[in-house]
C-alpha cells in the first residue's frame, strides 16, 4: 500500500467510524423503544456495561443523550420544558434535558430513547443518584446505587493488595453480586459467567486501546484534538464498552493514531500551541467553541474530561478473566476512583501532563451545570500554577444552557490568552538570543 493509499484508508477513519457507530447505536435504541424493550440506564463513570450486556439490556447513557441535544442546538427546548415542570435553572442541565426526553415519551433529536427497566448509578457523581430517583418515581423501576469508595484524601489512594484496598474491593464485589441478582430478576435471564468473560474481554481491548490512544497524543504534532476528536472517541469508549464493535473501533484507532504519529501527521490545522483542557466542553456551541482555539493554531493535546468521563478507562486496566467477578470489582473500584481523583485531586497528574505532552497552556472550563467537575477548578488552577510556569485561562460557561454561554465574551478572553502566549514565546526567544 502506498503512503497516499494508507492515508486515504487510515487517516480520519476513527472519526467516521465513531459517527457511524453512534448513528447505529441510536437506531438500535429507537428499535428497542418501538419494541417496548426496557433499557438499562447507566452513567459514564462506572457504567458496568460489560455486566449489563450479559442480560441483553439496551444500554442508555442519559448524559450522552443530553449532550447530543446540546450539540444539535436544541437543548434549550428541553431545558425549558423541565423548568416548566418545576426543576430549577440552577441544577444540572443534563438532568433537565433528560427529564424533558422522558416527558416527551423518549423523543430525542437522534431517535427514540427506550424507557428504563432498571438504572445503575455509581456515587462518582451525586447527581447520578438524584437523577436515578427521578426515574424511580416516573417508572417505578429499581435504582441500584453502586457505592464505590474513592480516595480518602489527596495522594491516599490505597494500592491494590493492601488491606484498605481489599476492604473496598470486597464491598464493591458484594454489591456487584447483588446487582447480578437484580438483573436476573428484571431481565428474566440467568447470569452467564462466560458471557461476562466475553464482554470483559472486549472491555479489556477497549481500555488498552484508549490508554494507548491517549499516550500517542504526546506526539508532535498531536495526532488528534482532545476536545473535538477526543469527544467522539470518548463517546465510543462509553457507548460501546464491553461490545465487540467498541473493541474493534479501538484496535483500528490505535492503528490510525500510530500511523499518524509515525508519519508526523497532525490534526486538520497547523499546530501552533499545545493545550490542555480541564473541565467539560461547551456543547451548546461545540464546533465554534473548538474553533475559538483552533483558529489560533491551538490544539488540545489532552483533557481531564477524557479521564473522568471515561470512568477511568484511561488506566487501561486489564480484567483477569479467570476470576471475573473479583476482577470486575477491582477494575470498577480502580476506574471509578481514578475518575474521581482526576476531578478532585488532579493537580499532580496535570503537572505531569504538562511535561509529558509538552503543553504551552492550560484551559480551565468550569460549567454551571456540573459542580462535581467545576467546584474545585479555580483552586486546582492556583495549585497547578504554583507547580508549573505555564499560562492558563479560566473561562466559565455551561455544557447545556446557552443562556450562560456568552460567545463574544469568551472569544475576547480566548484571544487575549493566545496573545499572551505569543508574547511569552517572543520574549522567551528574545531572552535566548
Amino acid at each position, binding site marked *: 500500500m502506498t503512503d497516499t493509499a494508507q492515508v486515504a484508508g487510515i487517516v480520519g477513519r476513527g472519526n467516521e467510524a465513531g459517527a457511524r457507530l453512534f448513528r447505529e447505536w441510536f437506531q438500535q435504541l429507537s428499535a428497542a423503544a418501538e419494541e417496548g424493550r426496557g433499557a438499562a440506564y447507566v452513567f459514564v463513570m462506572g457504567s458496568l456495561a460489560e455486566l449489563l450486556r450479559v442480560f441483553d439490556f439496551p444500554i442508555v447513557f442519559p448524559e450522552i443523550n443530553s449532550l447530543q441535544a446540546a450539540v444539535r442546538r436544541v437543548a434549550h427546548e428541553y431545558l425549558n420544558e423541565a423548568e416548566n*415542570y*418545576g*426543576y*430549577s435553572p*440552577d*441544577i*444540572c442541565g443534563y*438532568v433537565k434535558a433528560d427529564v424533558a426526553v422522558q416527558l416527551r415519551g423518549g423523543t430525542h433529536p437522534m431517535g427514540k430513547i427506550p424507557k428504563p427497566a432498571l438504572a445503575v448509578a455509581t*456515587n462518582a*457523581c*451525586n*447527581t447520578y*443518584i*438524584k437523577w*436515578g*430517583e427521578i426515574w*424511580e*418515581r416516573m417508572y417505578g423501576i429499581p*435504582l*441500584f*446505587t*453502586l*457505592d464505590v*469508595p*474513592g*480516595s*480518602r*484524601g*489527596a495522594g*491516599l489512594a490505597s494500592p491494590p493488595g493492601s488491606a*484498605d484496598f481489599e*476492604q*473496598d474491593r*470486597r*464491598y464493591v464485589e*458484594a*454489591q456487584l453480586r*447483588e446487582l447480578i441478582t437484580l438483573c436476573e430478576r428484571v431481565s428474566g435471564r440467568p447470569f452467564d459467567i462466560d458471557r461476562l468473560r466475553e464482554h470483559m474481554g472486549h472491555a479489556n481491548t477497549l481500555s488498552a486501546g484508549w490508554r494507548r490512544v491517549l499516550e500517542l497524543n504526546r506526539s508532535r504534532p498531536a495526532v488528534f484534538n482532545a476536545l473535538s476528536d477526543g469527544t467522539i472517541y470518548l463517546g465510543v469508549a462509553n457507548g460501546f464498552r464491553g461490545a465487540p464493535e467498541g473493541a474493534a473501533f479501538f484496535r483500528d484507532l490505535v492503528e490510525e493514531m500510530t500511523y499518524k504519529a509515525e508519519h508526523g501527521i497532525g490534526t486538520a490545522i497547523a499546530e501552533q500551541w499545545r493545550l490542555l483542557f480541564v473541565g467539560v466542553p461547551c456543547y451548546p456551541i461545540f464546533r465554534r467553541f473548538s474553533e475559538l482555539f483552533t483558529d489560533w493554531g491551538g490544539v488540545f493535546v489532552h483533557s481531564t474530561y477524557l479521564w473522568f468521563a471515561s470512568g477511568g478507562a484511561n488506566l487501561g486496566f486489564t480484567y483477569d478473566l479467570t476470576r471475573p467477578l473479583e476482577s470486575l470489582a477491582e477494575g470498577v473500584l480502580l476506574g471509578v476512583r481514578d475518575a*474521581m481523583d482526576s*476531578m*478532585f*485531586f488532579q*493537580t499532580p497528574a496535570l503537572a505531569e501532563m504538562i511535561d509529558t505532552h509538552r503543553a504551552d497552556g492550560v484551559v480551565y472550563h*468550569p460549567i*454551571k451545570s*456540573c*459542580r*462535581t467537575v*467545576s*467546584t*474545585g*477548578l*479555580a*483552586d*486546582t488552577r*492556583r*495549585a497547578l500554577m504554583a507547580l508549573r510556569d505555564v499560562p492558563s485561562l479560566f473561562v*466559565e460557561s455551561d455544557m447545556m444552557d446557552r443562556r450562560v454561554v456568552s460567545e463574544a465574551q469568551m472569544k475576547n478572553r480566548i484571544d487575549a490568552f493566545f496573545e499572551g502566549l505569543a508574547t511569552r514565546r517572543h520574549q522567551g526567544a528574545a531572552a535566548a538570543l
Partner: protein
Amino acid sequence: MATVFPEWQGQPLEEILYRCRALVEDADFPTVQRWREAGGKVVGHFQVYFPEEIAEAGGLLSFKVRGAPVETVHADSHFGSYLCSIIKTSLELALSGRVGLDLFVTHPICDAARNLAGVWGRNVPYPCRILYLPQNPNSAAAARYLRDEYNRLRGVLEEIAGRPITDADLRRAIGVFNENRALLRRLYALKRERPWLIPADEAYVLLAVGGLVPRTEHNALLRAVLPLLETRSTPKQDKIRVILEGGFCEQPPLDLISAIARSCYVVDDDLLIGLRWLVADVPQEGDPLGNLATAYLEHSAHSPVQHDLRKPKERMLLERLDQAGAQAAILMSAKMCEPGLEELVVHTRALDQRGVRYFVSEFEENMTSFDQLEIQLETFVENLLFD
C-alpha cells in the same frame, strides 16, 4: 478539659437562650478557640452526619462545619461562580483563621461538597480526609463496610489525639451521645406537643450549640433548660402548625427562622439534622463501632443527600408532617443547592397530591433582609387561617 461555654450557667431561662443565640451567631466560634487554648484538639466535620462519638472517645472536640454569615474575602478566589454559600463560607472560616482545626473531614454529600477535602487540603496545613459513608445503605455488605470505615477513621483520630481510642472509650462516648439524643428528642417532643413554649428560633439555638461544644456540656445545658421550658408560662396562640424542610446542610439565617416563628408554630424540621441523625439509643455493649454502623444504617433520619430504598422522600416528608400533626409545610432550599432544589420538585408534588398547603422559598445564609419573605409568609398563613 475546661468548660468552653460557661456563660449560661446560673442564668434565668431568657438569659440562657440569649447566651445560646449569641454563641450560635458568633462567627469567631469562641468555644473552638477556648478548647484549643486549653490544649485541646479539634476535628472539623462538614455537614451532614459525622460519627462524633469516635472523636469524643479520643478526647477531641468535634466541631460541626456549617458555614457562617461571613464575607468570603479569602475563599472567593478558590471557587467558581455557581456555588452555594456554605461551601465558600466554610472555607473562609479556615482561610481567615477564624477557626483553627487539627483535622477536617468531609463526606461527599453533594457534588460541590465532595470537592471540599481537595480544596481544603491544598490550602491548610492540617490533614483533610473524606469519610465515605455508604451510599448504598441497602446492600447487605454496607454494615461491615461502614464498621471497617469507622475503624479506619478511628486510626486517623488516634493520630490526632496522640493516644489509642479503646472500645471502652467508645462505649463511654456512646453513653454521652445517647443521653444527648434523649434530651434532643425531649426538646423536639416539646416543639411538637406544646410549640407555644418553644419557638423555632429558640429550639434551633439550643440544638445548634451541640455542634460547638463537647456533648457533655450540651447535655448539661439541655438538662438545665428543658425543665424551665416545660414549665414556662407562655400562652398558646392561634398559629398554624408547620414543618420546615430544607435545613439539612446550609442553614437559614437565624433571623429568618425567627421570622417564621413569628407567624407559625414549627412543630418539626430538618435543621442540622445530622445532630439528630441517629434516632434511637446506640447499644453500649458489644462492638461499639459495629453498633454505630448499624445505627447509621438502620435507625437514622433521612435527608435529600442519602438514597435509601426504605426511605422514599415523599413518604418521609408526609410521615414527618403526620407525626408532627402539622397543617402545612414550609419548603426551603439554599440557593444553588442542587439536592435541595431537586427535592423541592418531589416535595411539592407529594404535597399537591395529598392536598397539603405549602410555602416555597430559597434562602442564603448571608441574607439580611426578610421583609418581603415575611410578608409573603404572613399572606400564606392568613390564607390558611381564613380558608
